[in-house]
């Protein structure tokens, strides 16, 4: 089996080629410790059997970001894999110069390459004529013209790869004619790399047989010295000392190498390509950009696009969510009916099944959001949004690419946090993930509505039309946003560090989105969510169920029998009265059971801690229960006040819970506001916790988020309640 690595610039159709080659035999994982996708797959076609490794797209091998670092490591045989037998470099035929840079860099690692000259159709449409055989001859490796999208050229590619595999010299490009400065520098670097104290750490991959090729030495030289030191102790510092950077570009080895490569590339292109005169040719991209990037119309178009996206995620997902909710309720009932009543059934239905339902209920929003993002990206419009937004976002101290994740967090934090994966810079991504929970998500809305309805019911409308409750809810939304900006500012300067990534973005030509690619992306993300995040959600749901169920308390059985008998006696023949009476007893039973459970005890135990915010132990239990999902506060409070947990009429039920809160827990308008502030800030959603864990690959950041958000919530809520009380606003 041949090891074939697939390298290339972003936007060259590399992923399309990978999908065409591997079909459904692809596997997506992670590289250790980094959130970059690792894509591998098998290509089987007759005599050809390849293990294809799709490297992250990069413009250069020099390690400016994790993507390039990984590409280099895979090509040089780290991570325990052996170095590839053949490297297929996917080139955008319409963009040859920049693409050939990567090809030369890879060739300098002494690896046999095959150039896949992709997107030939786009090149033809632009009137570009390439003398492929001539260019291949001059370059020194096979060049295969292709249109990966329609699978044209696959056989030729297979043939070329097979030829190079059997005779690697056919794919080895001659070294660039370096000037003396570079030749000397490479010799110095090679000598340093040979020293035993700079050898790679044990178990961290190939030291390679024999002296490293030119490209390898230049790579280490061009690396950030700190990064180099981390991978091979002291090497970075030693190279920086021996070959310091020069002010003048033409004396700086690293930059001179790039210039020399481009000089070679320019000569190759001039000699073997030709472009037709452009007069009369319609450039759609230019035309659309005249609108899309227009200072006024472009912004309008952008707002429209975001509005549609938000509406899709927020509202169009509703029918699907309801269907999943009801579907699982139905399954739950069926399971209860089918299995004998008892603890096991309870765990199954209220623990495991509830957890699974709780995971799958996010699917519609995640699927729709990622569909939206994939479409934006595939058409090329996403790059335009960066152009429009950059100024505004940097002024606000936020990374430019965090707009879409934060916008979707208003619908639900979970897909918003997952969408942060599209942010390339690690620091920017972390900040986005850590402030996303402050975007008021849809689940908080029922809580806000219940609270404002209960405490502001009688208040006169402001200015005659705006309801007080409505104003407060809007206020909570704004509060969340403002707080997020403040927190982002603080985080940047303390915990997260680093500066925001510089904006350097290719603006690709517009393109009709490819259904297959888009569908595949969405399917991959959804699957990853269900498997990774879902398992954590299910586990946490079971734990929460246990907290609310054990120890088994409730009414004393003798007392219960007595009450049932009394209810029967009282109701007599009246079925309705009997049912109501029995329901009453059942609710009372639930109330006591919850009070005696661990969750109940926790609620009572934390009362001293939450009293400064104006909450009592009943609300405390509600807070514990709302860890499952924020809107679960309402049914849990329902149980706490002996109203049972089944809602026939949601609005009426919520209203009833609100009234009970006023009556039993002493909820005044001030307490209500304090509660809303708490819900606005606190991290209560276990699913959000699980999503953060998945995106940051560890428990450190989720726990940090938990501590900082809940701590902040406590502080702000307490401040609101205490200061309000001190000011006399009860």
């Amino acid at each position: 089996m041949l090891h074939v690595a697939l390298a290339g610039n972003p936007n060259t159709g590399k992923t399309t080629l990978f999908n065409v080659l591997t079909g459904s035999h692809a596997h997506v994982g992670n590289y250790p410790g980094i959130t970059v996708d690792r894509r591998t797959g098998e290509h089987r076609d007759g005599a050809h059997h390849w293990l294809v490794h799709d490297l992250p797209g990069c413009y250069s091998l020099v390690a400016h970001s994790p993507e390039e670092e990984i590409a280099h490591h895979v090509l040089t045989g780290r991570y325990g894999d052996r170095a590839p037998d053949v490297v297929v470099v996917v080139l955008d035929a319409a963009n040859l110069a920049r693409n050939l840079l990567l090809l030369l860099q890879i060739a300098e690692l002494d690896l046999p390459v095959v150039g896949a000259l992709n997107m030939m159709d786009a090149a033809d449409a632009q009137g570009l004529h390439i003398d492929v055989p001539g260019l291949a001859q001059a370059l020194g490796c096979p060049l295969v013209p292709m249109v990966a999208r329609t699978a044209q050229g696959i056989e030729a590619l297979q043939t070329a790869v097979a030829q190079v595999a059997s005779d690697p010299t056919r794919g080895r490009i001659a070294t660039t004619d370096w000037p003396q400065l570079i030749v000397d520098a490479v010799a110095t670097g090679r000598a340093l790399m040979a020293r035993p104290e700079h050898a790679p750490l044990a178990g961290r991959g190939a030291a390679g047989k024999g002296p490293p090729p030119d490209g390898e030495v230049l790579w280490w030289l061009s690396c950030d010295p700190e990064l180099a030191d981390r991978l091979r102790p002291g090497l970075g510092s030693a190279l920086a000392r021996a070959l310091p950077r020069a002010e003048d570009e033409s004396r700086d080895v690293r930059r001179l190498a790039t210039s020399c490569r481009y000089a070679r590339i320019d000569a190759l292109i001039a000699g073997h390509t030709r472009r037709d005169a452009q007069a009369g040719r319609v450039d759609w991209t230019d035309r659309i950009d005249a609108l899309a990037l227009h200072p006024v119309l472009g912004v309008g178009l952008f707002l429209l696009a975001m509005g549609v996206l938000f509406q899709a995620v927020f509202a169009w997902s509703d029918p699907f969510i309801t269907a999943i909710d009801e579907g699982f309720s139905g399954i739950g009932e069926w399971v209860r009916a089918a299995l004998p009543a008892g603890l096991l059934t309870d765990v199954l239905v209220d623990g495991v099944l509830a957890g699974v339902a709780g995971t799958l209920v996010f699917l519609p929003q995640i699927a729709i959001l990622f569909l939206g993002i994939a479409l934006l990206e595939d058409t090329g419009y996403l790059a335009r949004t960066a152009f429009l937004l950059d100024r505004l976002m940097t002024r606000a101290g936020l990374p430019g690419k965090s707009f879409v994740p934060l916008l979707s967090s208003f619908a639900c934090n979970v897909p918003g946090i997952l969408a942060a994966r599209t942010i390339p810079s690690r620091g920017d991504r972390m900040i986005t993930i850590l402030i996303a929970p402050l975007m008021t998500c849809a689940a908080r809305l029922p809580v806000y509505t219940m609270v404002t309805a209960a405490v502001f019911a009688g208040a006169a409308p402001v200015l005659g039309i705006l309801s007080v409750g409505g104003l407060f809810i809007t206020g909570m939304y704004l509060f969340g946003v403002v707080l997020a900006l403040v927190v982002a500012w603080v985080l940047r300067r303390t915990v997260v560090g680093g500066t925001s990534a510089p904006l350097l973005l290719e603006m690709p030509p517009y393109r009709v989105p490819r259904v297959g690619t888009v569908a595949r992306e969405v399917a991959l993300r959804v699957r990853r969510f269900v498997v990774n995040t879902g398992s954590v959600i299910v586990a946490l749901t079971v734990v929460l169920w246990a907290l609310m169920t054990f120890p088994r308390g409730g009414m004393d059985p003798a007392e219960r029998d007595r009450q049932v008998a009394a209810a029967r006696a009282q109701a007599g023949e009246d079925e309705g009265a009997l049912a109501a009476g029995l329901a009453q007893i059942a609710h009372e039973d639930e109330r006591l059971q919850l009070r005696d459970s661990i969750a109940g005890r926790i609620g009572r135990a934390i009362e001293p801690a939450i009293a400064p915010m104006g909450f009592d132990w009943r609300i405390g239990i509600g807070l514990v229960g709302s860890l499952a999902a924020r809107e679960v506060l309402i049914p849990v409070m329902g149980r706490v006040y002996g109203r049972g947990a089944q809602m026939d009429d949601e609005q009426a039920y919520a209203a009833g819970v609100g009234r009970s809160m006023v009556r039993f827990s002493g909820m005044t308008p001030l307490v209500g506001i304090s509660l809303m502030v708490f819900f606005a800030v606190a991290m209560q959603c276990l699913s959000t916790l699980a999503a953060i864990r998945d995106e940051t690959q560890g428990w450190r950041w989720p726990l940090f988020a938990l501590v900082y958000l809940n701590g902040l919530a406590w502080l702000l809520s307490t401040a609101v309640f205490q200061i309000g009380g001190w000011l006399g606003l009860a």
Partner: protein
Amino acid sequence: MSVKFQTARETLTLAEARPGYAYTIASIVLPGPLGDRLLELGLTRRAPVTLLRRAPLGGPLQVRIRDFVLTLRAEHARAIELVAAPAAPTVTSTLRMATLQPTAR
């Protein structure tokens, strides 16, 4: 869109460039990794570059460099030095500029 040429030879930064005019890169005054990256993207000496548009309020610039379009921030554009392109370009690249007739201004 058709590309224009300035007749006077002058040095200016990308931030001062006029949209639609053809220039070539003189040098990049950005030490460090960002400068390296710009070079790797093709902003080498004598490479053809054209400013397409600027975002309002000091926002990013959209620039055509060789065969593709790049977005970069105004603050970085100030560090890229340009020269007005000669009518007969020294770097015959695949850019359409090579086939147009210069229009005197």
